């Protein structure tokens, strides 16, 4: 049952002082299973909403089959979402066409009703504008649904005078600085070359040893000069590339956005193509995004590999030559190479060995702190989640049952499922473990009585949401005091 007004819910989720990067509204992902009489619909993700702020780590926690991975995959459009809307950087990337259609139909109905009475002209105009905006919304949702490139009108305007765009200015500054550096090098080396030539002419050719040495010197200087000139050309090329991609980014809205969102997969063996070298694997994202210059590609790949603490020499090897942790780092490099601002990490450590897990967690932590990357972390290991995350949502059978800040959930778990999850974390402390006794099991039919009123996600305290009905809500609230 979907009751709550979306606007209210989302405004609750949003922290005002921080910038929001991803907002998920009523996301639904259903799968059709079986055929004929056995045909059923599995609600893998059913009506979940949350938002993620810039720079934070948000975790989805739950047992396998609760829909946490499906959520991640639906957000990055590996599945076509059944319903719900997802906003990324303020732009709608997944639109609910059915919902928009419904809203429009209701509006038209209301308009017909209103038309029966006499409408004044100003009222009619109001109706007209309302209907127009609704129609526009309908069209845009349809376009959005079919992955069409959205050409933004504002972008077109700004493209006309791109010199005023801040990012463009930054680019120009950066490359001018580089170019000046190179130019000074060129001038210096030109002088050196001239000097060396003069020296060479002065020397008597009979002194062969000295002559050869001077000749060698001259050649070295010349080489330096040539390299610097090449570098200058390349610099121009890079500048052009970056401007091109910037223009592209300004012109088209969603293509850029999807590039800013990347995914790290669970299984480091299955997610890397065994027939591609590391360089090909990492560069694939760049190539798809239209980078064609081999030098630029190589540079970016090496940069990404260095970021995950691999060496550029590794680029020519195949995935099977690496250990599990290194493979997972290749997967991370593949995500990082297109400079994403948001990463979906789908259980990146659950398939790794203990000693390697720490490497990957530390790496993700560094990336987040250095590059300010926002991470949606999907996991079932709660001790890692506690160590790593800022906020988390606990999922159970396609629903979010509890959501909020890390401290609040770990110190005051309210929903019985969260309690049983926290209860079952094994700890490296024998005394404590022996005292603890049996792990608590969660049985929804015993814990809740939803015959009178169906549960919804409610805010029990600031930034702490629990899936409950009114009765439970009051109980939880009382327990907090």
């Amino acid at each position, binding site marked *: 049952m979907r009751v709550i007004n979306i606007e209210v819910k989302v405004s609750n989720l949003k922290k005002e002082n921080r910038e929001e990067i991803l907002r998920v509204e009523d996301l639904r992902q259903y799968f059709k299973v079986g055929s004929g009489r056995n045909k059923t619909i599995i609600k893998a993700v059913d009506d979940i909403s949350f938002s993620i702020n810039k720079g934070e780590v948000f975790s989805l926690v739950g047992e396998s089959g609760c829909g946490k991975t499906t959520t991640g995959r639906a957000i990055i459009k590996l599945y076509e979402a059944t319903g719900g809307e997802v906003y990324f950087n303020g732009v709608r990337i997944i639109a609910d066409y059915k919902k928009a259609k419904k809203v429009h139909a209701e509006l038209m109905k209301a308009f017909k009703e209103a038309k029966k009475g006499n409408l004044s002209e100003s009222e009619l105009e109001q109706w007209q504008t309302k209907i127009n905006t609704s129609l526009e919304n309908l069209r845009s949702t349809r376009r959005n649904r079919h992955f069409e490139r959205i050409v933004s009108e504002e972008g077109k305007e700004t493209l006309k005078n791109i010199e005023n765009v801040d990012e463009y200015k930054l680019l120009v500054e950066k490359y001018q600085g580089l170019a000046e550096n190179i130019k000074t090098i060129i001038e210096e080396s030109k002088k050196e070359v001239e000097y060396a030539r003069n020296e060479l002419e002065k020397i008597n050719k009979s002194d062969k040893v000295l002559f050869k040495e001077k000749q060698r010197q001259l050649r070295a200087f010349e080489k330096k000069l040539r390299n610097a000139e090449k570098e200058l050309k390349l610099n121009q090329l890079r500048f052009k590339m970056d401007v091109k991609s910037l223009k592209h980014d300004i012109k088209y809205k969603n293509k850029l956005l999807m590039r800013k969102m990347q995914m790290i997969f669970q299984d480091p063996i299955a997610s890397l193509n065994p027939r591609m070298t590391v360089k090909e694997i990492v560069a694939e994202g760049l190539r798809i995004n239209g980078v064609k210059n081999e030098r630029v590609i190589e540079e970016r790949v090496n940069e990404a590999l260095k970021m995950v603490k691999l060496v550029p020499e590794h680029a020519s090897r195949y995935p099977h030559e690496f250990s599990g942790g290194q493979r997972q780092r290749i997967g991370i490099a593949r995500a990082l190479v297109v400079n994403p601002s948001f990463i979906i990490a789908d259980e990146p450590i659950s398939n790794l060995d203990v*000693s390697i897990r720490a490497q990957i967690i530390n790496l993700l932590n560094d990336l987040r702190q250095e590059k300010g990357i926002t991470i949606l972390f999907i996991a079932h290991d709660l001790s890692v989640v506690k*160590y790593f995350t800022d906020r988390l949502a606990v999922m159970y059978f396609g629903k979010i049952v509890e959501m909020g800040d890390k401290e609040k959930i770990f110190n005051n778990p309210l929903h019985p499922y969260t309690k049983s*999850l926290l209860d079952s974390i094994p*700890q*490296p*402390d024998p005394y404590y473990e022996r005292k603890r006794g049996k*792990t608590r099991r969660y049985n929804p039919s015993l814990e809740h009585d939803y015959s009178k009123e169906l549960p919804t996600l409610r805010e029990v305290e600031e930034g702490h949401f629990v899936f409950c009905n009114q009765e439970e809500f009051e109980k939880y609230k009382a327990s907090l005091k």
Partner: protein
Amino acid sequence: MKEKVLEVKNLTISFKTPNGLVRAVRDVSFDLYKGETFAIVGESGSGKSVTNRAIMGILAGNGIIEGGQILYQNQDLTKVSEANFHEVRGKKIGMIFQDPLSSLNPTMKIGKQITEAMLVNGNRMKNRLKDLYHIEYHNYLNMKKAIEIEKENVRNAVINLRFSDTLTRAEKQAKIKELKTNAAKNIGQLKKQLPDLKAKYLEAKKRADKQVKQEKIQIKNDENASLNSLYERIAALKIQLKQTSKTDAFYKKNLDDIRKLKKEVKEVKEQFRRKFKVTRKEAYEKAIQIMKEVNIPEPEKRFHQYPFQLSGGMRQRVVIAIALMANPKILICDEPTTALDVTIQGQILDLIKQIKKERDLSVIFITHDLGVVANMADRIAVMYAGKIVEYGTSEEIFYNPKHPYTWALLSSVPDLETKDKLISIPGTPPDMLFPPKGDAFAERNEYALKIDFEEHPPFFKVSDTHYAATWLLHEYAPKIERPKIITDRIARYKHRSEGE
């Protein structure tokens, strides 16, 4: 002193590969006491699974046991032939594997998989026959094996002599000759005993055959006797039935009586059939009982389902049920919860604990998750690169770890209160084709001493039950503090346990 159930002594296992021998297990020794849980911890490739596969006798084809013993009930399991190993495997030592999906057959119903072993080994008369001449048969086989071992030893000795550098050619030849004559004498003596043993074995077999035949006849006679009396009663009732009319009150009662008797006949037949072999019904009853024991809800329904219809936790329960069907005394759990979720992991661990308590099992628990071990184990051994580097009771390992590798393992996992940066172990485990000289962990160890690269440390005693193989415990070694993250954690735990 507790009773030892299993003793592993200096076990060394290698795998033949095209590149040479991979030394997977090097000189591992441990004891398993009755009713305890012994945990082996280490990262993948440390040889913990290989050790236990050797105990189960299911090493891969290219695996060789190069030395050492696995003593179970005074029997060395490394010397038991494949033909006889099935008397130990499953019946005495059961095993639970890591991935429940791949250890179950996807095309077979669960019930069939649980009862399969029981039905296949179900011919009771055959088993009884084997039991009767078991001793003589094994004496004969052991003698045969002893002769072969003797021959092998001589062959090896000769080869060693041939390639030795210290002797001259003439000396070599003389020694070889001496060896061969001695060996021939020994082997001849052993061979003389063979026909005698064989005769004894054949005689015992004949005797056993006769006895079993008699027993069979006895059972048949008993069955016939009890059945005949029943048949007679049925016949009498039938005659009565014919005489009474259908409307009579007696008619119905008689009919019921006959039905009851017929049921009884079926039961008697079933009972006597069970004396010959394990019947399907018997196996079904036992399977349902065990499935209830491992907390599988609705066992009657699950019995007819396929593995893919169950969740991961249920599948693991089925695997445990299969292991328990033969009433083993030792249970080896090879990472039983790695493929499972946290909540289900807790349930499975509780289940293993409960079974252990109820059946007085001894459990060998293999894992890489130290949190799980704290919950389960009485004693813990930490393995690295095919060697045990530290062992002790779980309190000693968790509250007073001594080996740098144990420190690294403990500090690479965050617990609920960790806030510092995790310490990751640099590098990768060594290539066991060329095991490093000295301490295998030295390369990845920031506390490594110079001697670590040259000589392997012996076990230093920390307490009566706690030993660690690290030079840091030597009296001349510099005093080194544990990493801060661990000392903090231990202090926190102590505080917590005192607070309660």
